[in-house]
């Protein structure tokens, strides 16, 4: 019996645990503890100083999983430095004296099924390909449904009439998703909750503020690392639009990129790496539609987004839309974020009133 673990990001631990526990029924899946200040503290302690913050967060959760006895850690790569995280993190973990293997399922931003099969066989030789295909299908659908519901929540949570109604219903949904039996069951649960969500009472004024959030993927998807930005916006009764989610990254990105490139061809010719080019096109889209403002978030030292920032600034100037830039680090002050957000919100209101 092997103990398998993976780093924490948002609510995606639910589909990930679901998949792993079904394709490795004889192994134990260790769920990473929720990210806390301690996670980032130990993550920072053992990370290179100028590495980007997602590295510190994932290393922190990995070390917490190792404390719980994990033997194999699963990590995903990305289209930037993230692609090399797994190797470096494995080295750091081994230097700390843990006997552990880190498996990188995605390298160079590509998902190669053959390679993944090979790697999964290393975890357990009895692993069955057919089972993997079946459960991967369900998991992918689960991720898709979660993302659809999340988009709906983002648009409406700022206007809920009973405080916490959206949050509570979402938790109930996630618990039920966790107990999915087969695809039909999953689909039924999803439809049921979609109905329940649409029945939740909201009060949406016509003159509401709409903000689009763009930026670096990990910081955008893990609420702890962006200091619960979406929550504080919802408290100000703002409708939120966010593009990045796991389903987008895995299945839509490659296809969308060409569209984005054509759409924003006056702003970039070549890819800027990771999500930076996507964000430039999204910024143009937000400027052209009826959004009141844009918030760009990234972790400190995120190179692709640093490259995108001047271009985003230029687009916003051309369209006369305000952009707020946030750079989150392990040592960002909460008050500073609040002051800037409050001022941003006041400014948008003033613009809207006139």
């Amino acid at each position, binding site marked *: 019996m092997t103990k398998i673990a993976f780093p924490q990001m948002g609510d995606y631990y639910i589909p990930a645990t679901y998949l792993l526990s079904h394709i490795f029924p004889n192994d134990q899946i260790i769920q990473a503890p929720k990210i*806390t200040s301690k996670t980032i503290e130990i993550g920072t302690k053992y990370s290179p100083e100028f590495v980007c913050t997602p590295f510190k967060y994932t290393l922190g959760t990995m070390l917490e999983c190792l404390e719980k006895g994990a033997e194999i850690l699963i990590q995903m790569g990305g289209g930037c430095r993230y692609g090399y995280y797994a190797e470096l993190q494995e080295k750091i973990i081994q230097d700390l004296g843990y006997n552990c293997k880190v498996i990188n399922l995605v390298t160079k931003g590509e998902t190669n099924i053959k390679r993944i099969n090979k790697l999964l066989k290393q975890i357990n030789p009895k692993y069955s390909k057919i089972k993997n295909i079946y459960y991967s299908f369900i998991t992918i659908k689960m991720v898709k449904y979660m993302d659809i519901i999340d988009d709906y929540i983002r648009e409406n949570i700022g206007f809920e009439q009973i405080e916490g109604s959206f949050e509570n219903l979402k938790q109930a949904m996630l618990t039920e998703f966790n107990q999915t039996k087969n695809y039909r069951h999953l689909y039924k649960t999803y439809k049921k909750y979609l109905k329940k969500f649409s029945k939740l009472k909201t009060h949406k004024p016509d003159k509401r503020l709409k903000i689009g959030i763009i930026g670096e993927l990990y910081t955008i998807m893990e609420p702890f690392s962006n200091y619960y930005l979406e929550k504080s916006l919802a408290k100000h009764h703002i409708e939120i639009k966010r593009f990045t989610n796991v389903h987008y990254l895995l299945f839509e990105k490659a296809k969308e990129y060409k569209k984005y490139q054509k759409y924003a061809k006056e702003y970039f010719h070549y890819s800027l790496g990771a999500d930076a080019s996507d964000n430039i096109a999204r910024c143009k889209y937000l400027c052209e539609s009826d959004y009141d403002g844009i918030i760009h978030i990234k972790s400190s030292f995120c190179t692709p987004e640093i490259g995108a920032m001047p271009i985003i600034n230029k687009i916003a100037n051309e369209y006369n839309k305000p952009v707020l830039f946030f750079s989150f680090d392990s040592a960002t002050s909460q008050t500073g974020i609040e002051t800037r957000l409050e001022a941003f919100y*006041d400014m948008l209101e003033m613009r809207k009133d006139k």
Partner: protein
Amino acid sequence: MKDCYLGVDIGSISTKGVIIDDNNNIITQAYIWTEGNPTKAVKNLLNILKQNLPDNYQIKGIGTTGSARKLIGLMLKASVVKNEITAHAIGTLTFYPNVRTILEIGGQDSKIILIKNGIITNYAMNTLCAAGTGSFLSSQAKRLGIDVKEFGDYALKSQNPVKIAARCTVFAESDLVHKAQVGYPKEDIIAGLCKSVVLNYLNNVGKGKKIVGPIIFQGGVSKNKGVVKYFKEILKEDIIVDKNSHLMGAIGIAILAKKHKTGKTYSLEMKNLKFQTKAFECHHCPNSCELLKIYRNNVLVDSWGSKCGKY
């Protein structure tokens, strides 16, 4: 009885208070040092204001702004608690409706606010570091043995300011010590410091922002003639410094308090008020939140810092 409104701006270095009437005229004002104790500073401030306030006025609204706005807002039961960016913009727009750019350098932070047709269109605030702010200037003044109020006059005397690397406070300080030890005259070093504050501001906060006139410069540092001179020189535009430039945040928040009348009448009497804060660390989960409990006359009114909402 006539109505009036109190605005309090509690900054990191100084605490400012104004009382305005219905026509935005300043009835009385006060400017004192915060000295790291905002509650005590505000109590002193209110005492000064109260002595100068004519008897036929009653306070109909209180607003707080500045970095201690939340705490003092609770203490005074303020009707409006707003961030300093909005307060400064509102205050300035009331007196200068045509303003396009507001430059603001305070004790710990510096901001730039861009305005078009009376609406804020963009703003920026310095991040993380205090280089090029008031506290940096005042600590350097101490090092050179000069009162910070005379800083500007010294700077104006200089004919050729030295170059000081002011990207970072720590580097600037070592560069300054070096220049002093090599034998540069004091005036040139001070002028260099003032110039470096301007350059640092324009490279950091003002980066990518189009600065168009009329430009208004405010915040504590705007009282420094040297900094004003170099802003004029580098931007090649006229810089307006209001005689109340240091009070603009307080005036702005007082105007906001006037707009959000609650109908209540407030008292400036704080002698019997017991206002306490207690800090402790929660060990319920690994987050180890630093919590602050706030007591008003021994009654818990609020607690801050909890990530999970337990407190």
